[in-house]
């Protein structure tokens, strides 16, 4: 069964701190690993994504670290801000024309002042 395991379920970080969310997968056929950000009552929006031939990708304060041998990837939010408070989902895509995504269970991040 295709699964993506995500932790922690919730996270509280002080403003300016680093938020770290971890995900692990089993299916080696996954070929694309996006992170989505979701605010209450809204649909998820793509935040940043990585392919398995790259070990790290950085966009502004957001960085994905990818460990192909361990089948793990993580999202790091540097200098976390209250506006980053949201639910974050990792996902993995299987190859093929259907482009199906398997999502983690989500992490609710709260950034305090």
């Amino acid at each position: 069964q295709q699964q993506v395991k995500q932790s922690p379920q919730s996270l509280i970080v002080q403003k300016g701190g680093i938020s770290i969310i971890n995900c692990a997968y089993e299916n080696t056929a996954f070929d694309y690993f996006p992170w989505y950000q979701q605010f209450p009552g809204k649909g998820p929006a793509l935040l940043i994504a990585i392919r398995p031939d790259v070990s790290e990708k950085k966009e502004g304060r957001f960085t994905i670290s990818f460990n192909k041998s361990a089948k793990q990837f993580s999202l790091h939010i540097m200098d976390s801000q209250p506006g980053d408070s949201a639910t974050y989902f990792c996902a993995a895509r299987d190859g093929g024309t259907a482009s199906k995504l398997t999502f983690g269970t989500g992490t609710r991040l709260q950034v305090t002042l």
Partner: protein
Amino acid sequence: SQTIHQWPATLVQPVGSPLSLECTVEGTSNPNLYWYRQAAGRGLQLLFYSVGIGQISSEVPQNLSASRPQDRQFILSSKKLLLSDSGFYLCAWSYTGNTEAFFGQGTRLTVV
């Protein structure tokens, strides 16, 4: 530019009543279309996907069905709702073979 419309935003329906949620995409042709359900603490579960008109694939057995009567229209239906059908339903689209999925704003369905 491409946009996705999903409606209604919220819906309260009695048990046993029918359901019809609609999703349309503008600004692209022949997209892949998806219906997801989001339950608290369980992430997003893929319910149905479609790679073309009239082509529907179901991911999980359930009380729901989907249809794609037009290229950019995706409908989620039920003949008789159950309490367990309550949740946040999300429609999404992607380019064929592409990696990124774009989500609608979702429908909060409460079955009472």
